[in-house]
Every structure is written in structure tokens, then in C-alpha cells.
């Protein structure tokens, strides 16, 4: 579905998404017209989903980052759906992942400080439906965060 020339384009764009078409063409050794067509096709086929900016929440006043590992009560058939639906309503939740393993759901949560975190945790998180167990891990430092694919 994609060949080595597509891969070369994706590699360059992943490292530098703002790259102008002529520069990209030079780097992969093709004509700009050809590269444009390929990029368009990669977008149409949904291999490239889009572009976004990473946000540093600390600058916006959020200094506490917590990862909540949640086990759900699986005797309730709708536990996952109910929990996720309710978790979406908590504004401080940045990411929701579901897993196969010891953890059912992970929430990535931010708060302005520890007092704020405690309030959100007590009032918004512990009241979410069907929680069997919950563990909190506090993020101390981001070591690597680019999420690049090893293309």
C-alpha cells in the first residue's frame, strides 16, 4: 500500500511537518509535482491523518501530571462504556486509553497544583462509575515525548 518513496516522504515529514513542498522534494530527490501528488494520496488514503501542535500545559498553569490506572468492575457488561463516557466529561482528563492486561483503563490527568489535584480526584474521579481499583502515578519528568513511528 505504500512503497519506499512514500516511506522517505513520511520520514521527512514526521521529523519536520512544516516542511515546504519544494524542500521536501529536494530531500527525497523527486520533483515537487510528484511529491505533492504522493502527499495528497497519503492523506486521501488516511496514512497521514493531519497535523497538530503539542501544548505545554505547565505554561498554562498546570504543574501536576498524574497517570491513573483503573481496574473496572467487569461483572457489569457496560462498565467500559459507562466509565469512558463519564471520564470524557472531566475537563482535566487529557487522554483515555483502554488496555488488555492488568490495567483496564488509563487516564492522563492534569491539575494546577496538589490541592487542585486532590479536589479533582475526590470529586470528579472517584465518583466515576464501576471503578474496582485505582492507582495513581505522578509524572516527574518527560524524557522522550515525540511519539514518532520507527519508519
Amino acid at each position, binding site marked *: 500500500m505504500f512503497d519506499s518513496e512514500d516511506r522517505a516522504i*513520511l520520514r521527512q515529514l514526521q521529523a519536520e511537518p512544516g516542511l515546504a513542498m519544494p524542500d521536501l522534494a529536494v530531500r527525497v530527490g523527486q520533483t515537487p509535482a510528484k511529491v505533492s501528488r504522493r502527499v495528497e494520496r497519503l492523506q486521501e488514503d488516511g496514512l497521514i491523518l493531519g497535523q497538530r501542535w503539542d501544548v505545554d500545559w505547565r505554561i*498554562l498553569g498546570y504543574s501536576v501530571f498524574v*497517570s491513573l490506572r483503573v481496574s473496572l468492575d467487569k461483572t457489569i457488561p457496560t462498565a467500559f462504556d459507562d466509565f469512558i463516557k463519564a471520564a470524557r466529561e472531566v475537563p482535566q482528563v487529557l487522554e483515555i486509553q483502554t488496555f488488555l*492486561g492488568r490495567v483496564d483503563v488509563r487516564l492522563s490527568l492534569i491539575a494546577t497544583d496538589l490541592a487542585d489535584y486532590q479536589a479533582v480526584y475526590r470529586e470528579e474521579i472517584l465518583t466515576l462509575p464501576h471503578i474496582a481499583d485505582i492507582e495513581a502515578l505522578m509524572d*516527574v519528568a518527560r524524557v522522550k515525548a515525540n511519539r514518532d513511528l520507527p519508519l
Partner: protein
Amino acid sequence: MSFDDIDRQLVLLLARDASQSTTQLGRRFGLSQPATWRRIKRLRDLGVLTTRRLDLDAQKLGFGVTVFLGIKLATKGRVSLDDFERAIGAIPEVQTVDHVLGLYDYRLRVVARDLADFERVLRRRVMTLPGVGDVEANVMLSEERRPGPL
């Protein structure tokens, strides 16, 4: 530092879609293109908007498996955290590394072609690093990002 409603809306929109032009963005708020550009530049200069990222469909590109790994260091104090972080961050399949407090010392996000490929990365690249103790793996089934409290 102060951010008004338009700043917050801009951050929200750009965190979702960075490909919109400043003209398009400005129109939503009744701002001119230069005024919008100045606001975005300020948000970048202040470090609110950090890095522009390309969003790729990992599945379609052949990366069918994403695993979150919790790693506990076995010999704390004897292993240099800097060395460990450098070595673990250099593994291409490792997308994110977070130093955490709690049950584990590090949380890793790892992509692989399939479970066999993941096992290869885990055994040959991760488990061979000095100091790696307990490892817990959770295979991701679904993921969604939320806009956050803006």
C-alpha cells in the same frame, strides 16, 4: 503571562489541527491575518505551543501493536538514571518515556508491528538494559485524546 479567550480557543484549535491557515483561523474570531499570526507567534514564543507534529495512522503503516510498559529499576542508586534514560530513549520503537513516582519508575509507550515484534523489542532491547527490574506490559486496545481544560 495572561491568556484571553481567543488565545485559549486558538490553542484548542491548533492542538487538534495545525494545518489551518492563519486567515482561516482569524476569520473565526473576526481577527485579521496579521493579528492572528501575532497571537500564534506569542503562544509559540511563550512555549504554550511547543512542537508541530504529524499525525500518522500507525495501523495503516504496519504498526499494529502499541504497548504501555511499566519499568521498575532493580538496582536503584547503582544505575545512572541519565544513562538509563539515554539508552531507553534511543530505541526507535520507544515513542515516549516518562519518569514517574509510584508503582513504577518509568512508563514507556512502545510500538511494534505485531506481538512477536513487540516481544523482540522487549527481550533484545529493553530487558538487556542494565538495571531493569520488574516490567509490566499492557497492550493498548483504544485511545482517545481530549481537548483539556481550556
